[in-house]
C-alpha cells in the first residue's frame, strides 16, 4: 500500500489561512489502512480545525478512493460550496482532487512516504520503488533497489556489518544481507555470482513521469 503520515497541524492551518469554507476529504483505501487519512483521521482533523475557530466552516467526507475520478460524485455538491479542499489522500489522490475540481485550491494534509508493508502495530517499511522492471525473482523475493540504501545490484557494499546498513545501523537492515541469507536458505546462492548489468533506469521516473495504456481493458 501507499504509506503516508499526517502533516503538522500548523502547516495545514497555514494553508487554510483566509479560506472560509473548507472540505476536509478523506480517502478510504491505502491511507485508511495506514491510519493517516481515513474516515477517523478526517473527523479528527476536521474537529481540530473547527476548534481553532477563525469563523471558518469545516465540512467533512471520505470517499472510497481519491486516485480514481469515478468516486467523486458523492462530494460534488459539498465541494461546490467550498472555497478550498483539504485532501487526506496520498499525493496521487490529492492531485486527482485538483483535476476533478479545477477551480478549487487543494491542499495536502499528508506527507506521502512510500510504497510498503505493515510490519506490526504502528510500523511500516518501504519495500518497492516501482522500478518498472521487477527483479525480485532473481533476488530471492527481496528488492535490492529498495532494501539496499544505495540500490546496489551486485552485492553488499563494505558498510554492511552484523546485518545492518551503514546508513543507519539502528533502523535499517542491510538489504544485501537479507538477500544473501534468503538465497542461501533457498539453496540458490549461485544466483549472486552472476554479474547484474547496469539497470535500465529509463523505466523508472528517470524516464519522466510514467504512463500505462492497456488496450485490452480500454472501454471496460
Amino acid at each position, binding site marked *: 500500500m501507499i504509506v503516508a503520515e499526517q502533516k503538522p497541524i500548523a502547516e495545514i492551518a497555514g494553508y487554510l489561512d483566509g479560506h472560509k469554507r473548507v472540505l476536509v476529504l478523506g480517502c478510504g483505501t491505502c491511507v485508511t489502512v495506514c491510519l493517516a487519512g481515513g474516515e477517523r483521521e478526517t473527523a479528527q482533523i476536521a474537529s481540530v480545525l473547527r476548534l481553532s475557530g477563525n469563523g471558518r466552516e469545516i465540512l467533512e467526507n471520505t470517499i472510497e478512493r481519491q486516485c480514481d475520478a469515478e468516486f467523486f460524485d458523492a462530494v460534488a455538491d459539498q465541494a461546490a460550496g467550498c472555497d478550498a479542499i483539504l485532501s487526506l489522500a496520498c499525493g496521487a489522490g490529492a492531485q486527482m482532487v485538483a483535476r476533478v475540481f479545477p477551480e478549487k485550491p487543494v491542499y495536502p494534509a499528508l506527507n506521502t512516504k512510500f510504497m510498503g508493508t505493515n510490519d506490526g502495530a504502528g510500523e511500516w517499511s518501504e519495500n518497492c520503488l516501482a522500478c518498472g522492471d521487477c527483479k525480485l525473482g532473481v533476488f530471492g523475493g527481496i528488492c535490492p533497489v529498495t532494501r539496499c540504501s544505495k540500490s546496489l545490484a551486485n552485492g*553488499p557494499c563494505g558498510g554492511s556489518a552484523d546485518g545492518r546498513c*551503514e546508513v543507519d545501523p539502528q533502523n535499517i537492515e542491510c538489504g544485501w544481507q537479507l538477500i544473501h541469507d534468503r538465497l542461501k536458505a533457498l539453496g540458490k546462492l549461485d544466483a549472486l555470482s552472476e554479474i547484474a548489468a547496469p539497470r535500465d533506469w529509463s523505466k523508472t521516473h528517470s524516464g519522466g513521469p510514467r504512463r500505462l495504456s492497456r488496450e485490452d481493458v480500454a472501454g471496460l
Partner: protein
Amino acid sequence: MWRGCERPAASDVSDRSDSPLERSAIAMSEEKQSKSGSRLERKLAAGGFAVTAELGPPKSADADLIRNKAALLKDWVDAVNITDNQTAIVRVSSIGTGKLVHDMGLEPIIQVTCRDRNRLAIQADLLGAYLMGIRNVLCLTGDHQVFGNHPTARYVFDLDSVQLIAMVRDMRDRKVFACGDEIRNSKKAGIKEPRLFIGGAANPFGDPFEFRATRLEKKVRAGADFVQTQCIYDMERFDRWMKEVRARGLHRKCAILAGVTPLKSVGMARYMRDQVAGVTVPDCYVQRMAEASDPKAEGIAICVEQIRRLRAIEGVAGVHIMAIEWEEKVPEIVERAGLGTGG
C-alpha cells in the same frame, strides 16, 4: 635504499607518462601486453611488491597543500590514491588533484565513486583524466551522503562498483561506451579510447563474510586489474579470506594490495574497532596502544610488523598504506618495512 621508480620531469605531461627513454627500453617486452601505460601496472606485471598510499585532497582550493602531501610521498610509493569526496565531504576533485600530483612525477590512482556521478559524467571525466596523463582508476561504491557535509543531497548510484569496473574495462578493451557506441568522435574519425589500469576495493571483513570472496570474484570478472583491501588489523580473518581468494585463483588474475592504516592513539584503535563499519581491530592491538608510552611510535611499529606479515602471505602483491592526515609517516613505514629492497 629504494627510491621508487624513475620519475619523468614535471614538464612532461605528454600522452604517456614515461620518459621516451624508458618507453623504448620496455617497448619490446611489456609494452605489448601493457593495458594502460601505468607504472603501477608495470611494477606489478614485473612481479614487484607494490606500495601505494593515499592522498586526501583538501576542502579548499589549496594547491600547496596537495603539493606538500605529494612531495612527502613522491619518492616512496609507486602510486597514490586520490580520494573522491571522501566520506561524502566536498573536496578538490580527484582528477584535479591527480593532475597536480601527476605533474610532480607522482603517479595518481583516481578514485571514482558511484555516489555523485552517473554513467555519462563518469565516462566524460575518465576521458578527460586520461588526456591529462592519468592512467589508474579505482572504482568504488562510495560512502552514503548521510556521512558527509551535504546529507540532504540526492545520491546517484546509477551504477554500482562492479558495473563501473566493467564499464571502464569495456572502454579500454572493447573500445566502447556504456551504451555500446564506439569511442570515436565521428564515423570517419579513429577510435581513441582511454586506457586505464583498473582497481577496485575489497573488504575482507564486511558481512556477509562468505560472500566477500564471491564479490571480489565478480570484480575480477568485471575487469579489476588490482584491488586494495580495507585496512587490515585482524590478520587471522584476512588469512582466511586470502585462502578463499587463492582457492578461486583470483590472486593470479588480479593483484591484491593489502590495506594498512597506522594507529595514532588508543582512542583511534577503539574508534576503529567499535565505530567503523567493516573494520575489526583485535584487542591485542588496542591493548598495545593503551600500554605504550609513545602510542604514535607503537602505531608505526604495529603497522611495520603487519606489512612484514602481509608480505609473507602468498598472493599478496603489495600494500596500500592509508595514513590519512599522517602522510609524513609513510616514508618511515616504507623504509622500516624493508620495502626498498625486493621491489
